[in-house]
C-alpha cells in the first residue's frame, strides 16, 4: 500500500533512500542537503537499512568513497549542495568515466562567494560536462519518484552513468507538502539488485580500474561515454513508463504544459515552473496562447524534443537560474542550439532569475509573457527582480 505524508523534499529523498536500501552511502553534510544524510543516518542507527554508512571528513572524500564502492560493485547513493558539490568537482568526471551508477541527491544552492545558502543552479551547472545525467525536479513528490527511477536509469547496462537528482534548495528541500510514497516491497522490486559488470570484488575475474590511458585510447573511451548518454536519451522513457506502471505517475524528460499550440513559451527548470504554469492558465483564460516547457532532463539534453515542443512558438523566453559569466547562460545556450539544429529560427529572449534564492513571483512571469507578446526580444540577457 502506498502512503501519503506531509514531508519535505529532503525527507522525501531520504525516504526513497531507505526503501532503495543502498549498499553504501558516503556523505558529508552541507546546507541545504544536510537533512538527507541526517535523516538517513537515523535509518542506519535504527537498523532500518543494511547500508554501510561511511562518515567522511570532506565532500571530496565522500564522493571518492562512493566511486570506489561503486567500482567494487555496490549500489551507492549520496547527497550534497553548493560548494560541497564544488569540492567534489575533481572526482565527478572519474565517477562518470568509471561508469559508477551513483544516485546523487543534489539540492541546488548558489555557489559561494558571497556565502548565501539559498537556491540557484550554479552548483549543478558547474558539473554539466562531467559525464553525469542531470534530472531537475519541480517538487518533493518528483524528488522522491526520481530518486527511485534514477537507480534503474543509472544502473541500466547500456547506460551505466551516475545521476544527479536535483531539487531546489529550501524551496523544495525544506518546504513540506503531501508526498505519496510507494510501499517498501514495490520499491525493492522496482530497483531490483545491482548486477555490476566489472565489480572489483569479483576476485575470480580480477580487473584494474584507473590504469593509464595514453593518447591512443583516451578519446575512444570518452566516445563510449557519449554513447551512454545517447542511450540514456533513448532508454529514459522506458524506465519512466515502467515507473508509471507501479506508481501511476509519469515523468517525461520534458514537461510540456499547454505548449501544443502555444505562441509564447517560457522555458524553465525545477520549482519555478509551478509559478509559470499558473500564469499560463491565467493568460489562457484571457485568450493568450501561452505555454510552459519545463526541462526535466538537462543531460543528456533532449534537443529534438525541445525543438518539437517549441515549434509553434512566435517568441520564446528561457529562464536560467545560473549565470555563465562572460558567456551564455546554460539553459538558453542549449535551447538556442536545439532550435538551430531544427532550423527553427524563433526569437529567443534570455532571462536570468532567482540567483542566491531571489524569489520568483507570478508578476515576474506575467512581465516575461508581456515582453514576448510585445516582441521585446534583445540580444542581451535580462535580469528578473534585480535592483536596477
Amino acid at each position: 500500500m502506498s502512503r501519503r505524508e506531509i514531508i519535505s523534499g529532503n525527507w522525501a529523498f531520504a525516504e526513497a533512500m531507505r526503501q532503495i536500501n543502498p549498499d553504501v552511502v558516503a556523505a558529508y553534510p552541507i546546507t541545504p542537503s544536510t537533512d538527507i544524510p541526517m535523516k538517513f543516518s537515523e535509518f542506519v542507527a535504527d537498523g532500518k537499512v543494511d547500508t554501510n554508512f561511511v562518515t567522511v571528513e570532506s565532500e571530496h572524500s565522500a564522493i571518492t568513497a562512493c566511486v570506489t564502492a561503486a567500482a567494487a560493485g555496490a549500489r551507492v547513493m549520496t547527497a550534497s549542495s553548493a560548494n560541497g558539490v564544488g569540492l567534489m568537482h575533481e572526482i565527478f568526471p572519474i565517477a562518470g568515466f568509471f561508469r559508477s551508477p551513483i544516485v546523487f541527491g543534489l539540492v541546488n544552492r548558489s555557489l559561494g562567494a558571497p556565502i548565501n545558502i539559498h537556491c540557484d543552479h550554479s552548483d549543478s551547472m558547474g558539473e554539466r560536462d562531467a559525464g553525469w545525467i542531470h534530472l531537475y525536479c519541480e517538487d518533493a513528490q518528483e524528488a522522491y519518484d526520481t530518486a527511485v527511477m534514477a537507480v534503474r536509469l543509472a544502473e541500466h547496462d547500456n547506460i551505466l552513468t551516475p545521476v544527479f537528482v536535483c531539487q531546489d534548495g529550501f524551496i523544495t528541500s525544506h518546504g513540506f507538502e503531501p508526498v505519496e510514497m510507494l510501499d517498501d516491497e514495490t520499491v525493492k522490486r522496482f530497483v531490483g539488485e545491482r548486477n555490476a559488470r566489472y565489480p572489483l570484488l569479483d576476485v575470480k575475474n580480477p580487473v584494474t580500474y584507473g590504469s593509464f590511458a595514453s593518447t591512443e585510447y583516451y578519446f575512444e573511451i570518452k566516445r563510449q561515454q557519449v554513447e551512454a548518454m545517447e542511450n540514456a536519451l533513448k532508454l529514459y522513457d522506458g524506465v519512466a513508463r515502467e515507473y508509471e506502471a507501479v506508481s501511476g505517475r509519469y515523468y517525461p524528460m520534458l514537461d510540456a504544459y499547454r505548449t501544443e499550440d502555444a505562441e509564447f513559451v517560457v522555458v524553465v527548470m525545477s520549482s519555478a515552473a509551478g509559478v509559470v504554469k499558473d500564469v499560463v492558465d491565467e493568460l489562457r483564460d484571457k485568450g493568450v496562447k501561452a505555454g510552459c516547457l519545463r526541462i526535466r532532463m538537462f543531460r543528456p539534453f533532449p534537443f529534438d524534443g525541445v525543438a518539437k515542443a517549441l515549434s509553434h512558438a512566435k517568441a520564446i523566453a528561457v529562464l536560467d537560474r545560473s549565470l555563465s559569466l562572460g558567456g551564455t547562460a546554460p539553459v538558453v545556450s542549449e535551447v538556442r542550439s536545439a532550435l538551430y539544429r531544427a532550423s527553427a529560427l524563433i526569437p529567443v529572449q534570455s532571462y536570468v532569475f532567482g540567483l542566491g534564492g531571489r524569489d520568483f513571483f507570478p508578476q515576474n512571469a506575467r512581465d516575461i509573457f508581456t515582453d514576448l507578446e510585445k516582441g521585446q526580444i534583445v540580444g542581451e540577457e535580462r535580469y528578473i527582480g534585480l535592483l536596477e
Partner: protein
Amino acid sequence: MTDKMNSAAMAKPKKWRDVPMAGVAFGATAEAVETGQWRSIRPLWDSEKCISCLICWNQCPDRAVTTDESGKVTGIDEFYCKGCGICAHLCPKDAIEMKPETDFAAARGDR
C-alpha cells in the same frame, strides 16, 4: 563492448567500441599493454660482457629483462621496456648501452 577475458588474450582494439568499458584492465594486470611504445632510448644488451648477476633483472620496473630456465639473462623484451635506462645505469660490467630510438627508425619503417 569486450567481454570478460584476460587482457593477455585481448586483441588490440581497432575501433572505439572494442576498448574495454571504463578503461578496465582485465586480469588485474598490464600484461597486454605495450609500454615499449613509450621508449625514446633503447637498451642494447651485450651477451659477451653480461655475467648474469641479475641486478638489472631485479631492478627493472617493467620486468622486461628476460632469462632462461637456468636464470641466465637472455635479453630485453622490447614489448615492455620503456627505456628508463636503470639497467644500463646499474650494470657493473657496462653490458647495456642506451641508444636513441631514432637510430632504429629506418628499421622500424618510420618516415
